[in-house]
């Protein structure tokens, strides 16, 4: 238990971790269906303290990969290494922010955010609450700390969830399309909030999205994923200056990076519509499935 509490304490030397995914393969076998290979020979590195974004067409295995990294699912083969050691089940060093809100509806915002420390101990409840209020203040939610999640708007729920994850100071924070379903304005604001929090904490972040602009605005490095079975196709280093503002999206460098990602992603998008060879779908004949 003490190794767990150190995260909540924040008294370890550096909370930032480096994540390495080695040759992961994931095959789903559903009775009555052809086995589907969701991930094939998927390798990538999420560098320490960097914001790495994974972009890919929908249904390419992004969430599967996120679940494997978080420890909710196991790969058929391959390994997830955190700071050089293989990861096992889910633990507070890899916190995931989900697509749909995963705040516990029966807990107030404050109780949600302090849930981690309350179960693993290490710091007192009042210390945890102090930390929680500090984080909530940064995202403008202090006055909603005693409200239930259902009383909050979608964007506020997402912010509360970011605070809940950040309080744990995870070695890697996994964000699986966290801003999906928000309207454009809220989404842009959320991206700015995230960058602000990233700038302040410098945590290692692994952000998954299907939106190119979101990826470009946030990322240090973009990884483009192929259609099913998913693997990394292209890596684009995004050297846009930080702190970033929305004006950056009008710059030439941005356009150049965007074109690069677009090209790569467009090809995969076509495959998913079956217009190019190799477009695999669940429950249909998939030439990639060998076993």
């Amino acid at each position, binding site marked *: 238990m003490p190794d*767990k509490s150190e995260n909540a304490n924040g008294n370890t030397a550096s909370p930032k971790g480096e994540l390495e995914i080695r040759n992961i393969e994931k095959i789903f076998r559903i009775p009555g269906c052809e086995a589907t290979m969701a991930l094939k020979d998927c390798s990538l590195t999420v560098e320490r303290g960097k914001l790495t974004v994974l972009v890919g067409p929908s249904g390419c295995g992004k969430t599967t990969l996120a679940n494997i990294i*978080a*420890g*909710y699912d196991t790969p058929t083969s391959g390994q997830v290494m955190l700071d050089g050691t293989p990861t096992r*089940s*889910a*633990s*507070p060093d*890899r*916190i*995931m922010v*989900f697509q*749909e809100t*995963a705040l*516990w*509806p*029966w*807990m107030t915002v404050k109780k949600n955010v302090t*849930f*981690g420390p309350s*179960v*693993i101990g290490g710091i007192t409840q009042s210390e945890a609450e102090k930390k929680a209020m500090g984080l909530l203040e940064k995202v403008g939610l202090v006055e909603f700390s005693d409200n*239930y*999640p*259902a*009383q909050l708007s979608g964007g506020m729920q997402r912010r509360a969830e970011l605070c*809940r994850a950040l309080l*744990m100071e995870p070695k890697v924070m996994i964000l699986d399309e966290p801003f999906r379903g928000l309207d454009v304005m809220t989404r842009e604001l959320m991206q700015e909030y995230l960058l602000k929090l990233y700038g302040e904490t410098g945590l290692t972040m692994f952000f998954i999205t299907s939106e190119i602009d979101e990826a470009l605005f946030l990322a240090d490095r973009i990884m483009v994923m192929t259609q099913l079975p998913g693997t990394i196709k292209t890596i684009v280093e995004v050297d846009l200056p930080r702190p970033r503002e929305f004006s950056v999206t009008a710059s030439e460098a941005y356009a150049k990076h965007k074109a690069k990602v677009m090209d790569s992603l467009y090809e995969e998008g076509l495959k998913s519509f079956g217009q190019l060879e190799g477009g695999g779908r669940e429950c249909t004949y998939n030439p990639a499935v060998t076993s």
Partner: protein
Amino acid sequence: MAISVAAKKPPVAVLRFKKIFKDKGKLRGFIAVMGFFLLWQAGSMGLFPFMKAIPTPVIVIQVFWDFLYQPVYWQSWMESFLRVAYGFIAAQIIGIPLGLGMGWNRNFKDFTYPLFELMRPIPPLAWVPVSILFWPTNETSIAFITFIGAFFTIVLNVLGGVSSIPKELVNSAVSFGASPRQIFWRIVLPATIPSIATGMMVGIGITWNVVIAAEMIAGNAGLGRLTWEAYLAGHTAGIIVGMVSIGVAGFVSSYAVKIISDWLMPWKKIF
């Protein structure tokens, strides 16, 4: 733009009436209820031949008034309420943990679910003869039958509630370092409360159905028995008083259950 209107105000009673029935929906409901009583009155007075044995609402109200002064009437309330309470509470105490266990532990469900599904289709009233053989007194037999009525519903609801907890809610708790015990008490149990509340709501309704029927068959007291004895005595107004009383009793119980469920789920009644 200010125009002063110096119209004469109508009397207070009219104003109050207008205020209540400003809501068209309420007015319609009021008309329907009044229409029902008028038709009943007219029907009993000879408009509908099939209703000639039924006393008019005016007589029923007079008889009802007399009932209120008889100790046996209130005793019937007490008897029925206690039977419902015993059966219902026992069903919650046994049913909620059973449903939670079935939803939480795969092995436990494998053992219990087939047997549960085998017993569930048997209607509570089909248990009456066996129940009389099982239990030493009529009282326990009836309480047992009401227990059966609420039991299957609550178990099924709790089991469904546990099974439909969004995976993310449990997964994220694991990530945050919660132990299986903490996940059960702090995530699974509160997430199931809405289903428990639904089970209780449906269960209380079934319990009243069952207790009335059981009293008519095997009871010696209670609102069901009161109604049945009024029938045997050819006291038609008494039958209707019994029916109305059962309706009120069911309503009061449902309301009590609703208050309990609201209290259990502060996060649900927030707007």
